[in-house]
């Protein structure tokens, strides 16, 4: 059993407490997974042997937004930037307050292994697939937005307006919450997420964190990488280099 990606979880009391109900939660979530899979005409290859993740190298990330554009195109987002528009991935500019060093990076759902959004969701609409991808089942979400309150990364958007011209394989809907799906519709076809493919500098490395021989695992073994807000102990599926 490879432990490459095991990040020591901080033993928060809260988490321990929640763990006791995880079995029951799985029961509640299973039908949701089924529905999502059906929506994609897909049921195999989603297994615990795989944990999809991304390693983002901020050193090469420059002043461009090709990943954002690719995401919008792939998932049928308007690309609008008002506070009520959905942004599944956004470019964040950072400046170290002590040294003044600047950098930029794409920020999106971190596909936490211990996702607070899933913990708090009253209906089980937020769920984690066996391969680690965290999704919202748009048929079950009641639009309470508690998951948005709970997500530490501001990864989620609420659909504030009726939608038009949707993409058939990316289910979305007014009044429900959505976020980066790591492009499940592509992954399930054996493709990479749109952002990873679009980055001209190959700053986004997509792969299986559970496979010790995958490129992403190799790189994480030999080079330093961090989780954003690692102190929260959420064991994120996205890792960053250079922050």
């Amino acid at each position: 059993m490879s432990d490459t990606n095991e990040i020591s979880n901080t033993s928060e009391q809260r988490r321990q407490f929640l763990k006791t109900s995880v079995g029951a939660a799985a029961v509640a979530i299973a039908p949701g997974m089924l529905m999502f899979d059906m929506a994609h005409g897909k049921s195999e290859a989603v297994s615990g042997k795989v944990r999809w993740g991304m390693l983002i190298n901020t050193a090469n990330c420059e002043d461009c937004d090709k990943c954002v554009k690719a995401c919008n195109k792939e998932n049928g987002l308007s690309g609008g930037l008002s506070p009520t528009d959905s942004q599944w991935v956004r470019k964040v500019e950072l400046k170290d307050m002590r040294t003044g060093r600047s950098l930029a990076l794409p920020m999106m759902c971190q596909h936490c292994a211990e996702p607070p959004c899933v913990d708090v969701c009253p209906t089980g609409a937020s769920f984690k697939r066996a391969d680690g991808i965290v999704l919202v089942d748009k048929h079950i979400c009641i639009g309470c937005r508690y998951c948005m309150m709970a997500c530490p990364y501001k990864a989620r958007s609420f659909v504030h307006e009726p939608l038009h011209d949707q993409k058939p394989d990316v289910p979305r809907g007014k009044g429900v919450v959505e976020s980066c799906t790591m492009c499940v519709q592509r992954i399930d076809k054996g493709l990479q997420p749109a952002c990873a493919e679009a980055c001209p500098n190959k700053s986004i490395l997509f792969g299986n964190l559970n496979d010790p021989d995958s490129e992403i695992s190799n790189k994480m073994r030999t080079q330093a990488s961090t989780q954003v807000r690692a102190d929260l102990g959420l064991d994120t599926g996205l890792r960053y280099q250079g922050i």
Partner: protein
Amino acid sequence: MANHSPLRFKNRVFYTLVAAGGLVVLMGLYAAHMMEGHGHIITGMNNQIVWGMPHVFAIFLIVSASGVLNVSSIGSVFNKPAYKARAPLAGLLSIAMLAGGLTVLMLDLGRPDRIIVAMTRFNPTSVFAWNIFLYSGMFSAVALYLWTMMEKRMNPWSKPAGLLVFVWRFVLTTGTGVIFSFLVARQAYGTAILPPMFIVMSFAWGMAVFHVAQSSIYEWNEKLLDPYVQKRMKNLMGVLVIAALYFVAAYHLTNLYFARQTGFERFILLDGGVYPLVFWIGYFLLGNLLPLLLIYHPALGKSKSILFASLLIILGGFCFLYVFIIGGQAFPLSIFPGYQVTSSFGDGAIGLYQPSLPEIMLGMGGVGIAFLITTIGVRVLDFVPHELPKSA
């Protein structure tokens, strides 16, 4: 005999009140209908301020619904006759406010049509799901309690039923506090002090609501409240207000104590624009200091000033929740500590929020529902304590 005839509204007053309440409820429903059609775009809420005005109203109503039962608990659990006589009215107010608050919460959902989903699919790790259970349980518990009080045969059971309600409302208010306590990544929330703070605030707000309802009912029926009862209840309310204030102070001081929260506290208490203003003027000055003065100043403390104090305490409650809920979200999440952050999605920036008419109407609609249920309940059933009429 006249002394013991149930207090009921005169016809004209009653129908006017029902019409007014009904109108407010209709406006709220209309707002909800608009929100369903157009989406939340017509509210002030957005991807940063995800909970807005409807939540301020709903949480006030739900928290006060629990607090108002203070009156019945003192009556049945601690056996104080003056309070016992008021227990049915407290129970009615509680059910009414719970109904109003829950309706607002439900109608604010992105998909209110899926409320059945919320009831049938129960994620046991979600505090929110527990709360749905707690709220519906509260209904049944209070209804049962009312029944044991109003039905003579059932009277012997009113004490255990009162105890059930007493315990349940603690759990309920704790649950409401825990909704926020679980948001560990948010600077404003995620602290263990929230559940007790909500409990104590619920006492103060509940007492104030009870006072307003009681005074209005007496006034419209031209009855006079026993000065002794008045004095006791007003003193209790004063103590509760002070206790709540203490918890709010403790909440902010604990935040200050942890270094990384000072930014948030600065924002909420000093330079956050509308939020410090609402906190200091609305909550602290109008919602606490002035009512305490009205209650404890020897020259004041008469029924008119108590009523005024109660109204101010309610206003203060709304101000507090506005700052707590909306101000708490407006302050940016600390995703990259130690970095200055900017993005197209409001990272590192104060969230903008402008409450819109539809969401205020929706919230008011919840108050309207509570008002209607109370008015009709008081008229149809004998919910009011018997005291000597003014004219007698």
